[in-house]
């Protein structure tokens, strides 16, 4: 059994502890370099883990060598490892941006950032539902503290809402877990998948209630329509590297939806199969519409980007509701694209805001930015990508989404909503871009230039958008393989629970 699966969780934790020790803690430079080096190492390790997973197929790591279904396992399949790779790629960009000076505006930025990475990686890798709850809490408590990094009224206000909502969400999560444990007698996701088909008839409604309570929790994390009100204020007020890292947090909710509702409540679940789709489909569509209206209505650029996150979440949720292999493959590709590009947009928004003086990122006329060519081009690339115009990755992603539904009323619904919302996003972004760069007042530009590390961070994240197009063939093959593996539950079960037989 390879210990490699554990490293994406252990490495950030050890780094965080190391950063808090005196020789490192007292020197800002050492903190930065250690944090950046460790994140780079994390990226290398996740890519290594991905290549291992591609050659070996699904593998798992039994913590303390307690074999499943009794012990807690970490599960490495293509989907989870791909998400870990995405997180570490994103984290490297965010930490580089943070190291350009934002980290010194409050204490403990780097340790908290690493703890959050630990939580995120753990949530992706775990194969146990209660362990998922624990890693959710690890990443949440780090995110609470990161959200108020730097201080200020807006951040405190957003943090109160965010913390209270997430604590209520945790309570609902625990209710759901207790119901599922009481009826299925296990919390190992693979074992639950196996036992779900043998649920006695009188317990079906209880299991359904538990499953739908889980839906509420994941909808809250992913910010799906009735539970999305926290997102714009939270993301818009967080400090830029934190907002960039938060871009992956909604995707954890989507990932959990994907995992739970395909593995546990998948086609083999008898009367419980596909119970979430009926909710996810209309709510996903409504989230896209609401996000697109929000993009048009935003008065400052960061709120606009936060609403773009909503649009991407809505698209992903619709795909999860469809649930076929093409849709799951599109979910993976679009997650890679939308996470990295919205994160880059949060960073670009901050670079623009820093150079516009008092107006910051509000969409009003102000002094011109000091580096119009640089900021204009990164804005242009990010906007083209996020709006889904060719030639960048958003176009490929949207194409995959549209191809995932090929007939019937679902096609009419999804195609019209996605295409109209893309148009609205395009209008919103053009309006924002022309206001930010062209509606300038006569004041001279100030001399604050973007720092090289900030420019590197943005280019690093945007290079992913180019790479996703340049290597679209291999990457879609990878996401396709992930989707096939995710749907092939008997094969996964036969690896995790060989003794029990593979009859879900």
């Amino acid at each position, binding site marked *: 059994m390879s210990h490699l699966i554990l490293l994406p969780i252990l490495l950030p934790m050890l780094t965080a502890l190391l950063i808090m020790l005196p020789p490192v803690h007292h020197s800002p430079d050492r903190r930065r370099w250690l944090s950046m080096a460790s994140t780079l190492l994390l990226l290398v390790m996740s890519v290594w883990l991905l290549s291992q997973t591609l050659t070996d197929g699904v593998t798992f790591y039994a913590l303390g060598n307690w074999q499943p279904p009794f012990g807690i396992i970490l599960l490495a399949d293509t989907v989870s490892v791909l998400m870990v790779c995405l997180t570490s790629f994103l984290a490297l960009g965010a930490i580089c941006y943070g190291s350009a000076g934002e980290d010194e505006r409050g204490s403990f930025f780097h340790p908290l950032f690493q703890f959050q990475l630990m939580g995120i990686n753990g949530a992706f890798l775990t194969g146990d539902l*209660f362990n998922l709850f*624990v890693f959710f*809490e690890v990443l949440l*408590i780090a995110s*609470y*503290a990161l959200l*108020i990094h*730097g*201080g*200020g*009224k*807006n951040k*405190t*206000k957003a*943090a*109160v*809402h965010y*913390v*209270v909502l997430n*604590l*209520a969400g*945790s*309570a609902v999560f*625990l*209710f759901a*877990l*207790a*119901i599922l*444990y*009481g009826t299925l007698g296990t*919390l190992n996701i693979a074992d639950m998948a196996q036992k779900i088909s043998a649920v006695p008839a009188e317990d079906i409604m209880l299991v359904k209630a538990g499953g739908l309570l889980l839906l509420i929790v994941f909808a809250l994390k992913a910010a799906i329509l009735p539970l999305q009100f926290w997102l714009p204020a939270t993301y818009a007020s967080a400090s830029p590297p934190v907002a960039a890292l938060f871009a992956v947090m909604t995707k954890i909710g989507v990932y959990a939806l994907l995992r739970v509702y395909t593995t546990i409540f998948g086609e083999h679940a008898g009367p419980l199969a596909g119970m979430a789709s009926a909710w996810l489909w209309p709510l996903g569509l409504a989230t896209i519409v609401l996000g697109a209206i929000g993009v048009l209505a935003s008065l400052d650029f960061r709120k606009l980007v936060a609403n773009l996150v909503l649009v991407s979440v809505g698209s992903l949720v619709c795909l999860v509701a469809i649930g076929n292999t093409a849709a799951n493959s599109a979910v993976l590709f679009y997650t890679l694209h939308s996470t990295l590009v919205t994160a880059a947009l949060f960073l670009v928004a901050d670079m623009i805001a820093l150079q516009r003086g*008092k*107006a*910051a990122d*509000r969409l009003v006329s102000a002094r011109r930015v000091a580096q119009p060519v640089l900021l204009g081009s990164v804005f242009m690339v990010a906007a083209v990508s996020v709006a889904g115009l060719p030639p960048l990755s958003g176009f490929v992603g949207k194409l995959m989404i549209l191809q995932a539904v090929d007939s019937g009323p679902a096609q009419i619904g999804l195609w019209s909503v996605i295409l109209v919302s893309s148009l609205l996003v395009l209008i919103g972004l053009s309006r924002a871009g022309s206001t930010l760069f062209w509606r300038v007042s006569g004041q001279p530009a100030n001399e604050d230039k973007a720092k090289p590390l900030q420019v590197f961070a943005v280019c690093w994240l945007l290079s992913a958008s180019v790479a996703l197009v340049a290597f679209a063939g291999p990457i879609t093959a990878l996401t396709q393989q992930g989707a096939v593996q995710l749907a092939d539950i008997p094969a996964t079960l036969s690896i995790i629970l060989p003794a029990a037989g593979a009859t879900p």
Partner: protein
Amino acid sequence: METLFACCIGFLTACGVFLMLRGRTFPVVVGLTMLSYAVNLFIFASGRLNLRGAVVLGTSDNYADPLPQALVLTAIVIGFAMTAFLVILAIRARADLGSDHVDGKLPGQKHAKREPRQ
């Protein structure tokens, strides 16, 4: 016993939800605490209510399910930490925003002055 236990959880949940919907941060914190008590009891019940169940194998025919107890312990620890954080955050919000309302101002109160942008 089941009825009493269920009523107890239901009552705690109802109180918790009611308090959580209040406008000021202190009742919200108390409400969340009550909700987490209800959750802890509920998890405990998921292993079935079982009197005088043995914990050591081979000593009895009637065993208690050990897993919910482990889950409850984890949930208590996490809930405790989160509540502590929320209390500190609520105090800071009172200091930063000048009001203990969850929105930072009483409903109907106008923005006194626009906050300077950072």
